[in-house]
Structures are given as structure tokens and as C-alpha cells.
């Protein structure tokens, strides 16, 4: 099959080049024609038309049995509006007694009787010409309208740019829903695929969303614009693609084609055309008209791809015969291409609006949040599910959400690593109005360059979900937790955006450089740090406010991001939760390390401590034991269990039991930046602690008073042994640490700071 396609491609290539030349010539002629002082431009002003009354045009061909069902429903719908809408039935040369039946049973209906069948397009054109109101609703005779279908269609014309509004099309139960009204175009491999896409949840929330075409059988049209565009083109006679072509031209002129999901019609039969053509003939008709539509309307840029790749489709959707027949009307198509109206909106632009309703809303209604709305509608977008006890970042987001949710309405969209994590969503539901999760399974590369630290979070499913959320609801503020999530900032245009730098990634990468001894690895680490910096700065520039967790983090970003954008809100700790009973007794000679092992600095810290420091401590105090507590230990950490003094627990439900038995908490971190939640937790639990200076960054440490800070291996061992030997010193240090945690790191004031920041940026007066 592939070989045939290649052969076809070579055979038809000269023809395609000739066609391309012809289309280029036409575009030049069209350009000249637009420059010449002929009245070619759309002359209609964009004014709101009176939209209380309309003319309803129904096309009929040998469909008396259909009219018997559709006309009473239509009359009910007209009565429901309370207005006197005009109903016109265009009889397209029926051979049955449709006209007699209408005259005898519905004398109020105006009849336009045509002598012969002029086809769908021309029949409707005659009906529109005979109508007297500014809005014309075109209906097929097999459409059974719902009682309230008319008002949503007419109300759409309050917008002065609207050309047509389509109804949502339903099918009887048990029938496959072939049409919905949500019409879309997908251009794959240079060949168009027109389709009716399913109705999404946001279609029912938003009254009007853009579609590619309003079907000629169930849509309302702006009459003057319809006439200005010349109505349905005779090129497509007898049927199919007239409406697609007309709507496409309207979009090009800058007029909108929308779908009102609240207006519903039931497409009960599909009888007129299927009775006249066989399925293969219909298929051929559609494919021909598809080609004419593209050749007539699409810009040269699209046509180049289309024409060059078209021969490859000759063995798929398109047969050579259909293609040959389509060429038969080439001159007419070229003529119509020359005579087309000048483009005001490019095809690429309106195609994007149609494909992505969010882009449409952002363009036409960028600041669509309501005025003086309170509480604020906040959307938090998180890279990891905010949950307690897994990792410091998750804890931070959870507690801040809880605090903010006391005053504002928070919705959450988060990645989850596996199905099991979804069980933790229930803990968030009391605080979040809505929680949506997306499993992080697949990503698409975001750049060609070799090191892309955030690309694993570039997930099409997540993007889609976020789009749906933003279309469904108007948010006052979007908060990205973790910098990698800011790659979705392009979707949130017009909404104030926050970004939390839980850890300044480039700085964290830079801390690795000092540890590398191999020059090549050192070079690689520098490269990674620079690359991360570049990407991180790009992301920070996309948002309105960057929240850092320590002053050091803010300083490291100051050279690259506007200083006014940077704020600091510390991470806190739940001092109530970690308030251990004073009477608790620790196990002597027990060391504890707590950390989530998906965070690489924790892995490095444990490998370093167990291989280099612990043997020296054990040598002095053989009864010493170490508990390594934390979620997701890798194989290298699990392997540490082979050391007799070490116990690797993995994830534990209640971490307090390990704090309780710890005499000393060790934090031997050598890499990474940001605030260390484990230090705050140990303080809140009233534990003595030995930490490296790097681990204490950004925390109110007073060495020797609330913590022992040890720089270097010797000092770390010495300090640890000192504490192990002196239980009273441990208690003293623990008490001081708890006081620090209670005074400076409680979540309530931190939550208040976050709320103030939110309210400040959206410039609303808090009530």
C-alpha cells in the first residue's frame, strides 16, 4: 500500500504543481481585485440586529410525512417564545401533496413553491430571499425542534459579530449520534477531516462556543450577512458542504459562528439524500465537495501542504475517479476563489478558536471574571498531590490550601503518580471546591535540547483537563505549585498567576557541582544547573508573582527575575500535630532521619551518612541505631539495611512514633536548597538535632541553642556523639527548638500572608 502511495505521489506530482501555480495566480488576481476600487469588502457594519423576531425557513422535498411531525413541533416552539415569528416552507419541487397538505392544515404558513428541485443550497437561498426578518432560522423538514430551542439561538445575536448560531442536534434513543452540532475540522497529513465532535461538559456551562460551521438544517443566520456572502454557493449543488463553505467564509470575514448547546433539535430521520444517492455516491459527493471547499477557500500556505500530500490519499479516503471528477469543476472553483471576499481573520486564528474554546474565550473575553466577586475563585495547579506525610512540598501545599480555603474558594488540579494516590483526594475535599487529578504517565518533549528537567510534567491529558477547567469556570487567580507547572501558564492568559518555587531548582543543581570529583561530571552538573536556570527563568517570567520559601531562594532568583515579582512565604509546620507528650521517653542512642526519597538530596544525605559518618559514630557508641524514615526509598537506600545498625522503614502512617523514640535527629544534607520541613517537624516535636549549614538555610537557627550546626564530617560526628552522650542537652535543645517552631512557623500566620498576597494582586478590598 505504501508503495502504491509513493507511485501515486510521483505520478500526480506534476498535476499538483500545476494546481499550485493556478492557485497562486488566483491569489494574485484576488489580491489585485481587492486593491482595485471595486466594492469587494464586506460593507455591513457590525451592529446588533433586532433579535426578538425571526423568519423560520424550512426546506421540503417530498416530505409530507416529515412535515406532519416537524411543523406542529415548530409551531409549539414559536408559541413558546410568545412572539409572532414568520414561518416559510420552501417546497423544492415536491412530487407528493406537501403543498396541499400545508395549505389545508397550516394556512398561516407562507409557502414558496419551486417548480423543480433546485438542490439544498438554492432552495434555502430562495427561502432566505423571501424572508422579512433580520434573523433567519434554517430548518430541515426532518428536524423536530424542542419547545425552547428558539430563544438561545436568537439571544446570541446580542453579540454584534455573530453570523450564525447552530443548535445542538440530538438523535432518537438507540440511534448512533452522527451529528451533534459541535463541528470541527482536523487537518491531518494535508487532508481535512470534518466531524461532529461530542458535546463536552463546558458546552452546557458556556452558552455559546465557536464551531466551524452552522449546519444548514438547524441554525440561525444573520440575514444581511447571509445575503452579503451570496448565500449558499451553487458550486456544491445539489447538496452537502454549502453550510460549511458559507460558515468558513463568514469566519474569514471576522464574523462568528457559534453553537448554542441549550437550543436542541431532534434529527429524527435522514431520508432526503439517502433515498436519492447510494452510500458510495454519497461518499463520492462528500469527498468531491471537500476538495472544492479547500481549493476555493483555504490559504495558499495550507494548500501547499494539501496539494503536495494529496496523491498519498488517493488510495485511502479519496479515489482517483473522485479526484478526477473534482478537477472537472476546477475553473469554477478558481473563479470563486478570485471573487472571494478579502480575509480579515486568518484561517489559523479562527481554527485555533474553534479547536480550543479557551483560546476563543481568552481572545474575546480576556478579563471574564466577574466584578467585585468575593470570595476569590482560586485554581491551584500542583505537580504532586498535596497530602500529608509524604514529602515537604506536599505538606506545604496542603496546609496553605487549608488556610486559604477558610476565606476563598479553592479548586485543585494535580498530577498523581499512581491510582493509589487518588485515595488521598478525600482528605482535600473539605477544603477544595473541586479536585481533579491526572495520572502522570505520558509526556511529550518540550524542547529539542538534551536536558529538560521539567518535561516529564508536560502531559497532554493534563493540558486538556486544565483547558476544560478554565473553560468551565472563571477563575480570579491561578497558583502554580512547583515551577514546572508554569509551563501551562499560556492557557491562563488574562488571569493573575502565582508560582511557588518550593525549591529553586537551578540552585539545587548547583550544590551538586561541589560534590563531583570527576571533571566531566562536574561539567555536566554545571551544564544541568545552567540549563535549569534558563528554563526556570523562562517559567518565572510567565507569571505575575513568584513565591519563594526562603530569602536565600529569593536572592538566587533576583538577578534573573524582576525583584518586584518576588515574595517570600516560609514553609510552616503543624505545631499541634507534632506536639509530643512531655512525658514521652526517647530510646537512648537512637538516631532518626526523615525525608522523602524521591528528593535526590535525601538519598545523597543517607548514603553519605551511613557510609562515612555512621561507622565512626558506631565505633564510639556501638549501641547506636539509625532509623531511616520516608516514602519511596530507592534500591540504594534499601540496601543500607545490610548495615546492622540501620533500619529503613519506608513510608509510615504516623511519623510521630519515630520522632518519639529519637534521641537525636540528623539532617546531613549536602545538596539541595529551600526550607527543610524535617527540621521544622523535629523542632515541633521537641527533638535535638544536628544539621549541616546547607540544611539550615532560610531557617531561624541559633547554633548551639535550638540546633547543632556541623560543617564537615568530623564536626558532624563530634556533635552527634556529644548529644548522644548528654540526654539533658538533648532535652534543652528540643525545648528551644519547639519554641522557635511555635513562634515563627505556625501555618496560621503563613496562610494569612498568602491570602494577603492573593488579595493584593487581584486588587480587591477584602471584606
Amino acid at each position, binding site marked *: *500500500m505504501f508503495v*502504491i502511495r509513493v507511485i501515486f505521489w510521483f505520478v500526480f506530482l506534476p498535476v499538483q504543481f500545476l494546481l499550485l501555480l493556478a492557485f497562486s495566480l488566483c491569489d494574485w488576481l484576488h489580491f489585485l481585485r481587492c486593491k482595485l476600487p471595486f466594492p469587494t469588502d464586506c460593507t455591513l457594519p457590525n451592529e446588533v440586529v433586532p433579535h426578538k423576531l425571526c423568519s423560520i425557513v424550512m426546506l421540503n422535498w417530498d416530505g409530507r410525512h416529515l412535515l406532519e411531525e416537524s411543523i406542529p413541533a415548530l409551531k409549539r416552539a414559536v408559541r413558546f417564545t410568545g412572539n409572532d415569528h414568520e414561518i416559510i416552507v420552501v417546497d423544492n419541487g415536491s412530487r407528493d401533496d406537501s403543498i396541499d397538505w400545508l395549505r389545508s392544515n397550516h394556512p398561516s404558513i407562507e409557502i414558496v413553491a419551486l417548480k423543480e428541485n433546485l438542490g439544498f443550497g438554492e432552495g434555502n437561498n430562495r427561502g432566505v430571499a423571501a424572508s422579512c426578518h433580520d434573523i433567519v432560522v434554517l430548518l430541515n423538514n426532518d428536524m423536530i425542534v424542542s419547545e425552547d430551542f428558539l430563544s438561545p439561538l436568537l439571544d446570541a445575536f446580542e453579540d454584534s459579530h455573530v453570523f450564525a448560531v447552530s443548535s445542538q442536534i440530538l438523535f432518537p434513543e438507540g440511534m448512533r449520534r452522527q451529528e451533534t452540532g459541535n463541528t470541527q475540522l482536523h487537518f491531518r497529513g494535508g487532508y481535512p477531516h470534518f466531524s461532529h465532535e461530542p458535546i463536552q461538559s463546558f458546552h452546557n456551562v458556556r452558552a455559546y462556543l465557536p464551531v466551524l460551521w452552522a449546519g444548514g438544517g438547524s441554525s440561525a443566520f444573520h440575514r444581511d450577512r447571509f445575503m452579503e456572502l451570496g448565500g449558499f454557493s451553487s458550486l456544491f449543488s445539489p447538496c452537502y458542504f454549502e453550510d460549511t463553505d458559507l460558515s468558513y467564509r463568514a469566519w474569514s470575514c471576522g464574523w462568528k459562528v457559534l453553537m448554542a448547546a441549550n437550543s436542541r433539535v431532534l434529527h429524527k430521520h435522514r431520508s432526503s439524500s439517502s433515498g436519492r444517492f447510494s452510500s*458510495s*455516491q454519497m461518499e*463520492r459527493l462528500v469527498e468531491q465537495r471537500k476538495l472544492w471547499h479547500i481549493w476555493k477557500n483555504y490559504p495558499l500556505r495550507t494548500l501547499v501542504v494539501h496539494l503536495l500530500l494529496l496523491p498519498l490519499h488517493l*488510495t485511502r479516503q479519496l479515489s*482517483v*475517479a473522485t479526484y*478526477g*471528477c473534482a478537477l472537472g469543476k476546477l475553473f469554477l472553483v478558481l473563479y470563486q476563489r478570485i471573487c472571494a471576499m478579502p480575509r480579515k481573520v486568518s484561517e489559523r486564528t479562527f481554527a485555533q478558536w474553534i479547536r480550543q474554546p479557551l483560546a476563543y474565550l481568552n481572545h474575546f473575553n480576556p478579563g471574564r471574571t466577574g466584578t467585585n466577586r468575593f470570595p476569590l475563585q482560586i485554581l491551584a495547579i500542583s505537580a504532586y498531590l498535596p497530602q500529608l506525610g509524604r514529602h515537604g512540598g506536599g505538606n506545604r501545599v496542603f496546609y496553605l490550601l487549608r488556610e486559604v480555603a477558610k476565606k476563598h474558594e479553592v479548586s485543585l488540579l494535580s498530577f498523581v503518580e499512581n491510582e493509589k494516590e487518588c485515595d488521598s483526594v478525600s482528605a482535600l475535599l473539605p477544603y477544595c471546591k473541586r479536585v481533579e487529578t491526572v495520572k*502522570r*504517565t*505520558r*509526556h511529550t*518533549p518540550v524542547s*529539542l*535540547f*538534551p*536536558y529538560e528537567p521539567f518535561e*516529564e510534567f508536560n502531559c497532554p491529558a493534563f493540558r486538556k483537563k486544565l483547558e476544560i477547567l478554565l473553560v468551565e469556570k472563571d477563575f480570579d487567580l491561578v497558583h502554580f505549585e512547583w515551577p514546572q507547572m508554569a509551563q501551562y501558564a499560556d492557557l491562563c492568559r488574562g488571569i493573575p498567576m502565582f508560582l511557588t518555587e518550593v525549591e529553586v531548582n537551578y540552585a539545587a543543581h548547583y550544590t551538586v557541582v561541589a560534590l563531583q570529583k570527576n571533571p566531566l561530571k562536574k*561539567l555536566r552538573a554545571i*551544564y544541568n544547573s*545552567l*540549563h535549569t*536556570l*534558563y528554563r526556570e*527563568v523562562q517559567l518565572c517570567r510567565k507569571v505575575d508573582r513568584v513565591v519563594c520559601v526562603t530569602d536565600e531562594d529569593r536572592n538566587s532568583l*533576583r*538577578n*534573573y527575575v524582576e525583584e518586584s515579582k518576588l515574595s517570600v512565604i516560609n514553609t510552616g509546620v503543624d505545631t499541634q500535630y507534632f506536639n509530643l507528650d512531655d512525658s514521652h521517653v526517647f530510646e537512648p542512642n537512637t538516631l532518626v532521619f526523615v525525608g522523602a526519597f524521591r528528593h535526590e538530596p535525601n538519598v545523597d544525605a543517607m548514603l553519605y551518612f551511613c557510609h562515612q559518618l555512621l561507622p565512626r559514630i558506631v565505633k564510639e557508641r556501638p549501641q547506636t541505631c539509625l532509623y531511616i524514615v520516608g516514602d519511596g526509598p530507592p534500591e540504594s537506600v534499601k540496601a543500607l539495611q545490610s548495615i546492622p545498625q540501620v533500619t529503613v522503614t519506608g513510608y509510615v502512617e504516623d511519623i510521630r512514633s519515630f520522632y518519639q523514640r529519637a534521641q537525636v535527629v540528623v539532617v546531613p544534607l549536602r545538596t539541595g536548597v529551600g526550607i527543610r520541613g524535617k527540621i521544622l517537624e523535629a523542632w515541633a516535636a521537641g527533638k535535638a538535632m544536628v544539621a549541616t549549614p546547607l540544611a539550615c538555610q532560610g531557617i531561624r537557627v541559633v547554633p548551639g541553642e535550638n540546633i547543632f550546626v556541623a560543617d564537615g564530617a568530623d564536626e558532624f560526628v563530634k556533635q552527634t556523639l556529644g548529644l548522644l552522650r548528654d540526654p539533658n542537652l538533648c532535652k534543652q535543645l528540643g525545648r528551644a527548638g519547639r519554641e522557635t517552631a511555635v513562634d515563627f512557623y505556625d501555618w496560621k500566620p503563613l496562610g494569612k500572608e498568602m491570602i494577603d498576597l492573593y488579595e493584593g494582586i487581584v486588587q480587591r478590598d477584602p471584606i
Partner: protein
Amino acid sequence: MNKSHVLLVQCCHLSQFFYVAKTLRERNPEYKVDALFCTSSQIDAYLEDFPYFSQVYFYQHNSRALGDGLDVEAIVFPLLNRGYWQIKKVAFDLSLTNLEVDYEGAFRPLSVRRLYLSRVRPLYSPTDSFVAYHQDFPILPLGKRILLMESCHSTVLRQYQDKLDALIPTDSEVTHIRKGSVKEIRRDVRINHFESAIVFFSGEPGFSVMRLLPFLLFVPRIVVVTETGKTFDVNTRSLCRFLLERIRRGVLPPQSSPRILVVQTETVPHVQHIIGQLRGVKLFPRSEITLFCRQMDRSHFELDCHVDRILTYGGAGIWDNFRLWRQIRKLDPDIVCAIFSGRPYFRKSKLIFFILPTRRRMVFNAQLDHYNLKFRTFSRIFRSEPLLLEPEPSPEPSPEPSPEPSDSSSHVLMLQTEDPVKTAKAIKVLTSEKVAPRARISIFCSAKEQGAFASLPQVNQVFVYDPQNPITSLTTFWNMARSGPDVVAGIFSGRPIFWKQKVLFFLLPARNRLVFNNQCDCFFLNWRNVHLLLPVRNVRFDNSILFIILFFFRRVAKILLFFPRFAFLLMWVVSMNLKRVMSTTTGK
């Protein structure tokens, strides 16, 4: 119009010309009408039936030569056709009063512009009465020696027998060639010089040689009969037009009762289902169905009222098979049908489906939708989709071998590509009820791990290699290959270890290759899931080819772009810091 003696020029088809002449005669009985024909052949026969003309002329290239013998007051052109330009031009140059006439027989003065316009398009559309006239317009009877090619299903010929009777004179000598008797034509050609031929273009596939034959024999007159009963005399233009129309409008489905051979390539309920479909109103309700099935399923199909005849295979011996083959050949089926669901069973039957001579092969897919097997649809038979009907448990085991190593004779060779713990876990999964509980398992491991694997109860044989001694390793490899494993299994966790064994995984001859991932879940390797072997986590791509290309592209980019990108990043950082310093010093 005072012209009472006119010359009607045949610048249109004969049916149009005689229709116009008839209309002229009816409207103006007092007129004297002469005719100028563009060709003299066959005209005499028509003139006997349609005696409208007082004088008849034939076209000559020189208008002066033509004009010498003429005594008319006006020349009348029925400009109903785009062609016939020469005769139009010659008649126009006679410099008499020129008139044009429509289907109704009304005259109008003919201008030069109108004459030239008639070259671009017909000036009048046919009326309903002309269409009816044209339908009944007779084709001239054929000559004495006629070649009748039955290049269609026999029922089509019967359907249009009356048309043939009208075409073939009673005293003519007809050589009737059917599909089976094409060879006899050699003898007939030597004896007979055919004057005319009738050939059927019924739109059915096949019969191409028979259709071509009259043209190859250069029979002077060939009449084509179509599937709608329409007949026309063949010339280059009419044949091209007919074939183009075929391409444009397609062919009406034949309304015949074909002989269908259904080849069993799936289980009984599926075959019964498609036989029901074939006999349905939408396909071939009047067909004659012969079923070619397994001996063991015969009893099921004998109860099926739609099956007219059953042929079974499964007999032993060459003679039985030869006799069966002759029986099938004798059937000469119009259509051969089979189900191609993508399942690897009934291979021999499928082969028979392809080698049987027939005009049309119809394939039913897994969803039991049907399509004709053509070059462009050929790739569809390889599609593997879930079957529409659940396969019923067969009372007897299928004679076709199953690709999965589920039967006790399957030999699975496990290569150690991970640590012993994980490999043992994979072996446990392999021997579990879901995968291959009765399989014979061999393992290929290093000499130092031999003890660990030999003690496993599931392992039947251990092949060892010694990393220090490549010669013995080669011997082991040879022994392994000779042991003839049905399945080669290995763990691909993404870790860059045991790479030689991983290469061996692909080199060893086996029918299937079973891959275990890091979690010891297993899958059979095929081209669709080959990308899962790559050491990338959390990646699921729909298109494996695209993913592999992208993967290697990025790997190459990583190497090539490292230093240029590094240089760029350094410059960028320096420029950012300089900018910052400058803005601080200038106080902005």
C-alpha cells in the same frame, strides 16, 4: 419560414438526427427534406426503417463538390452535439441560407457565432420525448457470423435474452463462448471470420480476458451490453466514454445468484454467522453456498439450512487431498469468502483461500463486516481485532498450533538479564497458571549463579556460560540454539546491565519472545510494543515508531548539542548578570 426544400445535416448522433427528421416531418409535412450524412456505413438499413428523406447525400471534404449536386433552399443544422465539426463546416461553407433546428423542430437563423458556440457545448438540451425515443432507437442487426462472449454471470445473459434476440438475426451463425470454453475459440477463429461480436460489460469482477478477446481478434463490429441492458456499438470514443462513466459513477451491483465458496478460517459460530449474512437480503439471497470446513465441524454445518454443499478436509494421503482439490476446482466459484480476524489459526485454509481461482474474494473481519479483497484492502487481513462473538469452547483441541507456550510441550528459554532474585521471580510468574504452567523451562545464566537457579523446582535445564572462557560460552550458545526453544524470555527493566544477554535475546531462534518488565509483568514482543524495551520510565507512546525515532534523535541531539548549548547558556548567564549590574549602577 418559406423554405420548402431543406437539407438536414447529420451533425449529431443518428438517433438525434432521425428524431429531428421525424419531428420536422410531423410539423411540416409539406416540406421536402434531403439528408447529408457524415458516413455511409449502416445508413441504408436505417433509411429503410425511417424513410423521411427525398434525397440522401454523403459527406465529402470539398464543399464545392458537394454543392454542385445540391438543389435546396436552406441548410438545416441540428446543433445538438459538440462534435461533427468537419461536416458542420463544410455544410456551412455552401453559402446557402443556414438554419438551426432544435428537438421540437423549430427553426432559427444560424449565425457564425452560434456555429462556433456549438463546438463548445450542445445548444439544446434533450427533451423527455427524445430520451424515450433514444431508449428505443434500434441498434442495427448484426452480421451473419456472430461471436457471443458470455463475459458475465449466466443469469445476466438470461436476463437480457430478449435484447440479444433483437440484435441477432435469426439466420445468423452464433459462436457462443462461455468461461470454460475459452480454449475452443482457437479452433473457431481459424474456421470463422466473425463479422460482429457481442460482449458483456456487466461490472462483475473477472472475465477480463473474455472481454478483451473480441478486440484482440479485430472483429469489425462489436456491440457491448451493460449490466443495465444498455447496448452500444463500440468505437474508440464510445468505449472511452463508457469506461469513464464507469469510473465516475461506478457499477450497479449484479443481481445474480452467484456460487459462493466459504472457507472455514474461524470457529463454527463465526462461520455460521457469515453464512447467514451472505444469505441475507443485503448480499446474495439467491446464492448457492458451498462450505469448505474441517471434518470435525461437519456435523454442526449439516444442520445449517443455508449451506447447500459441504466439502471437508482432514483426510489422510495425497490422493484424498488431490481429489478434494479437484472438487474445489470444479466448483468454479464466483466468490470465495473467509474470515480474517488476525488470529493465527487455520493457516492452511487461509492459504487455500488465496490460491483458489475465482473472480472475487470476499473477506470478513473480526467484527464480521465484509469487504472485497483487492490490492488496496490487502493489508486489512493482517489486522488483529477482538472477535465479535466469543469463541465457543471446542469439544476437541484445535489442530492448529497455538503460539502461546500454554501446552506442555512448549520450551521456554529464560535468559538471565537481571539479578537472581528478580530472575527467580520472573520464572515464578512464567510458570503461573496465567502464563505457561506446563512449559519446560531452561535458563541461561553465568556459572557462578548456576546453583541458585538449578535449585528452583520450575527449572528443567540450566545452560551456563563462563565469562572468562568465551569458547565454552560459544558451545553453550550452540547447544541452546539446538535445543529449539519455542519462546525466549528475558527481563528488560531499563537498567544498562547484562547487555550481551539482551543482544542474545534477539539473536536466538524462537517463535516468540517474551519480555518481563521491571515489575515482572510480561508481554510477547512484537513491532507494536518494541519501544517498551527502551530504558525510559513513565513513557507511553501510541506510535512506537515515532517514539523510537524521537528517542534516538534526542540521544544524538544530546551528544551533538551539548557544547554549543553550554556555550549559549554561559553567555546568557553572563549577559543577564551584566544587565543586572548595569541597571544597579545606573540606579534603574
